[in-house]
């Protein structure tokens, strides 16, 4: 659940989503859920391939089709993220030892 929590901190920030078919969509992150489905507002994208995106107000992208999410480096506290991931790894290792 670490990346779910991480993306929650990025709400209202501008991100670029790269889909598995190489299409890139830029927009303001409005919502994220446990499957890492995204909801974007104010989107901009290459509209030759998807002409209907011109008329779209907000976009729900299913997480399973996403390859990368490009984030402005200034929005990410990498030290905090590293600490958090280690803590989560420790916690799950502890679970195994404890037989949970």
């Amino acid at each position, binding site marked *: 659940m670490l990346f779910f929590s991480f993306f929650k901190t990025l709400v209202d920030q501008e991100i670029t989503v790269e889909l*598995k*078919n190489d299409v890139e969509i830029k927009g303001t992150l*409005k919502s994220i859920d*446990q499957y890492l489905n995204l909801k974007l507002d104010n989107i901009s994208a290459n509209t030759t391939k998807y002409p*209907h995106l*011109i*008329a*779209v107000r*907000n976009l729900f992208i*299913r997480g399973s089709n996403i390859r990368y999410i490009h984030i402005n480096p200034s929005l990410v506290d990498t030290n905090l993220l590293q600490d958090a991931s280690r803590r989560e790894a420790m916690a799950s290792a502890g679970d195994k030892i404890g037989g949970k």
Partner: protein
Amino acid sequence: MSSGSSSNLEDLYLQSYSFTTTAAIIGSVDRKVFVLLRDGRSVIGVLRTFDQFANLVIHDGVERIYLDGSRYGESTEPQIFLIRGENVVMMGELDIDKEDEPLEKLTRIDYGAAFGEWKKAQTEIVERHTIEDKQLRSRGHLTSFLTDEFY
């Protein structure tokens, strides 16, 4: 209830279910949406209901196929679509004032013809991958055919 009751209800949902699939989609219910499917086709219609897997029910929906950036085909008979979530790439709420804007620069062709061309392009992709996969397998590589080129 006041005239703003529907948006208040929406806010209530968003507050109690924030950061769920439900919260992301609920605002688009009863609005005109486009859904891009994994096979490259889109469905345009009114979103009526959905669930946590993004299974969608589209009312009065038409299928639309865009070809090479200059032409498109659209099915004529509106239908009800129940779309299984795994086939959804994205879903967007359409601005009704602007929804025909992208089509003005495109030529509409017969849906059957558009479907035929689209199907042919897909078959070519599959055939190309079949050949590639065969060559890779003969050299001991494991392959898995991904359909990300379709949409």
